[in-house]
């Protein structure tokens, strides 16, 4: 858990971020994981932003992508927009995101109105060693409150 103070969990229908604490969120996992056991412990790295590599390859500069369950379903969320491949999901509650000290920002896409981001977990800040270390702890905390789901077809 990071050092940041833990804010109160939003209890109303809409938090400051616009996503109620009770809302479930999905994070698409990168394909191809190898696991020593049949039940994969979700790797912490799945909650870190893709790294900045150059001004042409910014990585996850706006934050890591998630989907709001209120606006989609697990099967749809599991489909990668670039390849169409279906992949497993990490599922967690918005209240856990807030408890950790992170936020959720809606970032709807033309073909995906459920798209949102966790802006604190972004590739630009990851270039800073101190910020990256905080991100590492946030990502682990997020992993620890997530569960793996495998929608049909993944």
């Amino acid at each position, binding site marked *: 858990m990071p050092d940041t103070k833990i804010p109160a969990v939003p209890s109303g229908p809409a938090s400051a971020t616009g996503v109620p604490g009770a809302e479930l969120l999905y994070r698409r996992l*990168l394909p*191809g994981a190898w*696991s020593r056991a049949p039940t*994969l*412990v979700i*790797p912490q*790295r*799945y909650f870190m932003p*893709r790294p900045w590599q150059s001004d042409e390859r910014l990585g996850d500069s706006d934050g890591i992508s998630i989907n709001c369950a209120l606006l989609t379903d697990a099967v749809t969320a599991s489909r990668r927009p670039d390849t169409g491949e279906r992949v497993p999901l990490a599922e967690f509650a918005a209240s856990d995101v807030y408890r950790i000290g992170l936020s959720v920002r809606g970032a709807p896409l033309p073909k995906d109105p459920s798209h949102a981001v966790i802006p604190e977990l972004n590739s630009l800040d990851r270039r800073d060693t101190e910020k990256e270390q905080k991100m590492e702890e946030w990502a682990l905390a997020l992993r620890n409150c997530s569960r793996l789901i495998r929608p049909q077809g993944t």
Partner: protein
Amino acid sequence: MKGSMMLIQDNGIARDRIIPAGGTAYAAGIALTRPPNREAALWKQAIDQMLAWKKTRIVENCEDYPAQDVADTAIDFAVDQSDTGTSAPDSIVPSGGGRIAMEWNTPSETIIVEFIGLGTASYIRFDSAGKVAARDTLRRNPQSRRLQLQG
């Protein structure tokens, strides 16, 4: 286990500062209960998976698949660790931007080694509270050809 110990000791760093007693990513008590043959078989599976990623990368040319030099480095590391009896990780995953990450978990800590380029990896250890307890960089020693902590 010896491989990890060598990895630390070669660089003159007290191994219990970076890697727990027993010299591996696992707490010693857990590592000692793991059958070596089983671990070697798991490492083989993992290496086969990484070799498959290399082929996929050529076909897909997808940003999320591991880069060739990264995969080569991770495979070399896996072979070294397998040869010396280190416990296989819980997971090995493409971690974005062409990287590969290996992760070990115990009740007391989480360790991640992320391969980021040819002969280069980052090392991070979290304590049981989820705090970063140690960070370092692994670089290939041109003489031993093993990845070593920089300290």
